[in-house]
């Protein structure tokens, strides 16, 4: 294998990693910072991808343009899911963890079913988006535009989230609500508002990811499943409670995946990711940068 | 006979913060010793070191003639160290009796025995009526009593009580005091942390005052409360007047 091929692999891995990061950033907020399990994360992504697809199919709006629309729609969706479902799951006094896992898991199944019902199980894709299939070549290294844009959006999304969590009162309120949802009322915070907003924001970030993904990935009711586990591992690897961790987690996952494929049969490339996760948590039981 | 418990030059640091510095104390068999001192002086930390939650940064701990400095908590319990937690840690989804059975199992491998022992301890601590209630449904004062009951069920030689008599009316506190005496009469050595002087001082045989992680004063309660260092660091002027 030539040096160029290795550089290409690493470059692809890095871009892919940032894309994983982008997919995980919403989860980093909901699962990582708010500490609420969301087993329907992949399905949120799926919905966002479908939205982009239909906006393209019916109104010929390129996913890149519709991204804000999709994010806004997902914001509402996320907030509604919280207010209608998750809120009650969190209220459970007994084994709240399991209740959360299974309500969101049930929700995921329902979302898949509904997608199949309304959108049919056909594989869709947007054939000629602005980004799709375009690529930039620098000294023989190919950098696909969708991933480049994805990487850029990913960096911006993480920077934005970081700012939001660490520099605004809302971020602190979010952390406080995670710590003790029953106690925030003592300082005048409405936990449901905070969490509904958090879910909305998390979903909006998935919406961004979905819009970017839609411009070059295929779309069908089960598409979320391919990304869900990677997103969980990304967040956990970086450590719960850390925005930066999830960002770093994404990059590591991308790079590890690319390098594993160089040494192991590609069908085992996720084994590399999983092994790195296990290794990291054995050494640091709270992930790389986790605080909780 | 050697002391039941001895700490030798124990240090505990948390990052830059020194919670215990060069603490050397000893507790004799059958004593009730009060460990007092300002908030944040390092009393609970010292309890954690004695009970084996974490090893001290430096120094050694001897229990019943044996160096237990690096022995895990569970083993120390088997050797006879029983403790309560200042911030109560009940088994919330278990009933009161089941909570106590966990403790009783240390010395009773037969379930029936453990259960009998647990009932006995509940009688002893006055929790018998609440035996079948979930621990999560207890009010704070009862939870603290449950902490004591659980620890007693392990049949300890040394019982570490961290503010278990807090939040009681003086009358109720008297019942608590009587309970501690009963415990001692049952042959158990007690090392207790308590901030309510009206309760501790009449109760303890000896008081150790910790301040800023160090042993400040040690002696008979009557002497300790008169010590100007203790008054200025811990009791405050008003107490001086009263004492």
């Amino acid at each position, binding site marked *: *294998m030539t040096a160029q091929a290795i550089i290409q692999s690493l470059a692809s891995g890095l871009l892919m990693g940032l894309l994983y990061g982008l997919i995980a950033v919403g989860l980093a907020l909901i699962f990582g910072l708010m500490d609420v399990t969301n087993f329907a994360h992949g399905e949120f992504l799926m919905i966002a991808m479908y939205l982009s697809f239909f906006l393209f199919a019916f109104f010929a709006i390129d996913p890149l343009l519709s991204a804000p629309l999709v994010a806004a729609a997902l914001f509402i969706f996320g907030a509604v899911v919280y207010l209608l479902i998750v809120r009650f799951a969190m209220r459970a006094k007994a084994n709240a963890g399991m209740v959360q896992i299974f309500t969101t898991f049930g929700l995921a199944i329902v979302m898949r079913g509904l997608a199949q019902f309304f959108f049919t199980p*056909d*594989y869709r894709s947007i*054939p000629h988006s602005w980004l799709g299939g375009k690529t930039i070549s620098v000294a023989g290294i*190919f950098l696909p535009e969708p991933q480049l844009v994805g990487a850029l959006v990913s960096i911006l999304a993480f920077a934005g989230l970081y700012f939001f969590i660490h520099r605004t009162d809302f971020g602190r309120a979010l952390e406080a609500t995670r710590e003790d949802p029953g106690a925030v009322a003592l300082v005048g915070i409405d936990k449901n508002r905070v969490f509904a907003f958090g879910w909305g924001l998390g979903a909006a970030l998935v919406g961004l990811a979905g819009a970017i993904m839609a411009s070059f990935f295929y779309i069908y009711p089960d598409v979320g499943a391919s990304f869900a586990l990677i997103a969980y591992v990304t967040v956990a690897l970086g450590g719960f409670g850390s925005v930066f961790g999830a960002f770093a987690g994404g990059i590591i996952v991308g790079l590890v995946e690319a390098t594993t494929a160089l040494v192991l049969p*590609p069908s085992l490339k*996720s084994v590399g990711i999983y092994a790195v996760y296990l290794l990291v948590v054995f050494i640091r039981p709270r992930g790389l940068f986790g605080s909780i | 006979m050697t002391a039941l418990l001895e700490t030798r030059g124990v240090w505990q640091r948390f990052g830059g913060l020194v919670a215990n510095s060069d603490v050397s104390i000893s507790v004799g068999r059958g004593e009730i010793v009060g460990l007092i001192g300002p908030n944040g002086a390092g009393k609970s930390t010292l309890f954690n070191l004695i009970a084996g939650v974490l090893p001290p940064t430096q120094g050694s701990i001897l229990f019943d003639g044996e160096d237990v400095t690096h022995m895990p908590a569970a083993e120390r319990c088997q050797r006879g160290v029983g403790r309560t937690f200042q911030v109560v840690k009940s088994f919330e989804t278990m009933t009161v009796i089941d909570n106590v059975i966990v403790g009783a199992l240390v010395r009773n491998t037969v379930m029936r025995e453990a259960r009998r022992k647990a009932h006995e301890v509940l009688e002893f601590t006055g929790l018998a009526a609440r035996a079948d209630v979930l621990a999560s449904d207890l009010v704070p004062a009862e939870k603290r009593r449950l902490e004591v009951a659980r620890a007693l069920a392990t049949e300890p030689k040394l019982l570490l009580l961290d503010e278990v008599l807090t939040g009681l009316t003086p009358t109720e506190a008297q019942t608590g005091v009587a309970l501690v005496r009963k415990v001692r009469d049952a042959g158990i050595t007690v090392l207790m942390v308590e901030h309510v002087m009206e309760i501790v001082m009449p109760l303890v045989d000896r008081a150790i005052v910790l301040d800023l992680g160090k042993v400040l004063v040690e002696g008979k309660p009557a002497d300790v409360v008169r010590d100007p260092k203790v008054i200025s660091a811990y009791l405050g002027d008003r107490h001086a007047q009263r004492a």
Partner: protein
Amino acid sequence: QTSEVVIGVIYPFSGGSAQQGVDAQKAYETALEVINKDTDFDLPLAKGEGLPGLGGAKVRLVFADHQADPQKGRAEAERLITQEKVSAIIGTYQSAVAVTVSQICERYQVPFVSADNSSPSLHRRGLKYYFRAAPHDEMYSAAMFDFFDAMKKKGTKIETLSLFHEDTIFGTDSGNAQAKIAGERAYKIVTDIKYRANSPSLSAEVQQLKSANADVLMPSSYTTDGILLVKTMAELGYKPNAIVAQDAGFSEKALYDAVGDKLEGVISRGTFSLDLAQKRPMVGKINEMFKTRSGKDFNDLTSRQFMGLIILADAISRAKSTDGEKIRDALAATDIPGEQTIMPWKRVKFDEMGQNNDADPVLLQYIGGKFVTIFPPQAAIAEAVWPMK
């Protein structure tokens, strides 16, 4: 006399391959129309209504969902047989499920027609009630290499191959078959990549394909991975000389809708070709019937499903009975000339293992937005364009 014959159809109707199930449903309904209504095709059972052997009894289909799970396939087969009283079962898309469904059928002595499973091991298990009219992966792969041989004779340079197959039973089987034949015929496999189905990314894999840069890239991929593969190839600037695909994703409309423009000249094996309509007009008409239902043209899978049900129903009619064993015997005695199918097959005749060895695969090339048959010569209507594009 029976007025109705029930046939069980077991497919994935939910989960990742639900689309195949739903498409199959349309194909079977199309076949049902041909069987139950009076149509004017030169196909068994087309003329007249219902099954003549059973006094015009109509066929009814019961669909069941196996969710790609062998255990569920098994349970569904058993339910269809015992509760729905089906006379035969057809299915299943995934070969892994065909394994268990055919076992249950064997045990209840109900014929199983494996319409679209391509794993070669299926018919080699000594089952009496197993039938497959279509080719399996070894036959397909052999056809590909026959084609390479022919091209080489014409002076085309085909020496090195890159295999690229997914890691489920289909891809693994296909990859094994290809590797085996390549060895026998002295082609050099420069890369043999087994990848995880439905991976979120194929960058690393494509990177390796690109480095190897073989004369022919031979993918065995389902639709999703096919789309991602082609996109990733474009993104990483890999333009292979030629792609010869093991069907699956590469015969799906969805793939060409997504990335058709990058696939000018791709070759896929198959067992069906729409250009057969030029020789056999009924193929076009039946395709229209299917298209009104599904909005898609027949492809390699749906055509096999359609044909499978016709063959099965024909056997039931000839058996003049709904009894499993009689149908089995009738199936074993099947002999339908190729012209009476919508396929480019020589004929339909099962060997003692239930495999039809006369189902000739074809190679199709995607040219100008359509598939044209390029191999074997007797079926070809155009010369292969090589290299692609």
